[in-house]
């Protein structure tokens, strides 16, 4: 399916919320998936796989133990929680390569590295399992198949610049879109006659 980036972001945010993430983390999931799709990466597939694996997510158990200990209490670690924490703390972390243990769907870390790169006017590389991905925030240079399920990853600072590879449309497999839609559906309240009547409109007719 071809989608607008806003559609992807809105769907990913609702899906993450439906899977049990807080609203603030759901917003991160929306932006992260949007960025991956704009980079022609399978962001929708990665998020659908992640939510399915962790459902319902226990954020405490899937988050890094601390800003010095980048593994989850309960493996695999969530790349959204780890990525958001990394980006939050990026100016506090040492310059040395940082290892994250047992990360699920590591592709989803990349948008957070991109955001951290824009923030620090630098670039970051992510390596795991024969994959090397580098982003300076605007572009993404990736080699190898990033479709890993759970891996240890290493993040290093870099000074390269990437050509801007961002596009304006998203392509998501219809099955993955349906999966996200099922999670998103959990955020909708079942309609009742009372809510239909009182919740939105007016008792006045529109045939006036």
């Amino acid at each position, binding site marked *: 399916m*071809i*989608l*607008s*980036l*806003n*559609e992807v972001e809105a769907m990913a945010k609702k899906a993450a919320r439906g899977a049990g*993430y*807080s*609203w*603030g*983390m759901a*917003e*991160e999931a929306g*932006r992260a998936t949007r960025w991956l799709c704009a980079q022609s990466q399978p962001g929708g597939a990665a998020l659908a796989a992640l939510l399915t694996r962790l459902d319902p997510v226990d*954020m405490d158990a899937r*988050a*890094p133990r*601390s*800003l010095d200990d980048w593994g989850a209490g309960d493996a695999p670690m969530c790349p959204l*929680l780890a990525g*958001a*924490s990394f*980006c*939050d*703390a*990026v*100016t*506090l972390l040492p310059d040395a390569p940082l290892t994250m243990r047992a990360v699920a769907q590591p592709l989803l870390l990349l948008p957070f590295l991109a*955001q951290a790169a*824009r*923030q620090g006017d630098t670039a970051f590389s992510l390596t795991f399992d024969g994959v090397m991905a580098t982003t300076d925030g605007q572009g993404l240079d990736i080699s190898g198949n990033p479709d890993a399920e759970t891996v240890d990853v290493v993040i290093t600072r870099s000074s390269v610049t990437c050509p801007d590879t961002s596009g*304006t*449309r998203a392509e998501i497999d219809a099955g993955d879109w349906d999966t996200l839609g099922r999670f998103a*559906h959990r*955020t*909708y*309240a*079942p*309609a*009742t006659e*009372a*809510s*239909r009547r*009182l*919740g*939105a*409109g*007016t*008792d*006045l007719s*529109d*045939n*006036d």
Partner: protein
Amino acid sequence: MSAGAIPRRDPARVMRLHRLGSLHQCRLSFMRQLTRRMARENWTFSRPVFNIDAHGVGHAVYSAKGPDRTYSLVAFAHDLPADQRSDRVIAQAWDATFTLFDGVPDADDIARLRANVPLQEAGRVTAREISVSRANRSVRLWAHFVEALAAGHQPDPARIDEVGYLMRTTAVYGSGKLGAADREALAGREETQAPFQVEMLSVFLTRAFVRDLVEHMARARGGDAAVRLDPTLARQLGIGNSTGLGMAPYLVNHPVLFNNWIMAREEAIARVRSLPTATAKAVAQVRGLLAEMRAQAQTDPSQHPIQIERNAALAADLSALLAEMEARDMAGDQPWNRLFLWAEQTLSDEGQECLASFMLEPYGDLVDGLGACMADANADAARIDGAMPVATLLDLLQGTYGWALALDWQAHEAQARAWYVSEEKLEPRLGERFDEPIAAYEQPLAPGRDAAALAQALAGWDGTTPVAAFLLKHPEHRHMVRRVQISAHAPYGEIRDNTISAEVLPIDMLRCKLSFFGATRFDPRSDRWVRICMYAGAPYPDGLTDDNADLWVYDQTEAPA
């Protein structure tokens, strides 16, 4: 009195719901930014297709050509049974449906759009389309127009005043909705930089289509006896808009954008208040416009008790204001500031905000450039600064949300409502938290309550701890931490009132947003539903000139000269 520069008003004063719900259009309104630009740049307009049958079914294309590119409104006209006419999101059919096409559509485009645009949310469009919208007729006024014109005479102007429009839009979707182009895809275009220019252009062209359609239907019925609509009457017609709760969360969900709108207007107000003198001509212009507004408030046909009361209060305010302007020296010693201070002591919120908007009118040179600052171009504004110490975050929070910390959030009336989305066509709704099973589905639209909860959670943390460490343990507060940090550089981004209280009036949020569009004639249909009018008094595309591109908004109730 010192003649120094007057600062912008305090956000704590401006960002109250009642005041935001009293705002009026001004020079910075998005419709006026658009019509000024199109006149200045000599845009040309054409109607390459008008293929509509005697039953009012078919399609038409209206093209607007600017200096760099052309945009086309593709309109589909339908024959809608009355029992299907609803303005709510849950509707599935409309009197007319539209898309704004990027360029000039060919026959293949039209065929593709015909299969999708009439379905609205159930259809798909592409990156060639930049908005999707629909409209319903005002049934009584439409019938009156067709009948009168078919019989060879003009419709009754008093009936026009009662309603104000022949059709009202019930949604105008932009920014990637239903597969359309994202706003970012238009980022390099000067004509779409200011907010909602795509949507405003769509409505401007829709108004021309509606005029043509009613003349066409009259001709179909009356044949040679039919007459065309008097251009003076046509100019009085706007396009209505019927808006519910879908619009209310927008202001909460876009704090940086909202800040930029309010800040631009506040800066404009401060600049005019800071002027050391005013010419007699400028004062006379503002007085004339205020008098026109008083006439509009006195004849406003709204039936809603809230609006009737507000119109009466506004008319009384404007009478007092006009008398005051006549009595006092308006020449020197920062005359607008002195008048404004008097208004703050004397008039209702509505009267104060009317003066604030209208006193900008003589000063396009000071004000209009601020229109370019109203977009939100910083995609990374939502990034959290995790290095910020917890103590700094708490200071910021207390600055912006002090009002919320003073509330008793345990009281039922403080949390009486919850915003949620219904699974029924995803309609946004507002419910009673303690009476309906909706709390589990609540949307994050209560920043006051969430700020109070965040303050409580922060209380146990050492002030030097970085926010990143706090959020690692408290991801449930991430949304609110982001808002607090945004408020540090977007002081007007947050409504400083309880958006889930038993007394909240969602129409205040709707009116605030619609006033920035440039809407007039606010007509609440309930506490969460409002009808308004757009472009009433404006020239049609073929008559747009520099002379009439701006102040048309004041020409709604009398024939233009």
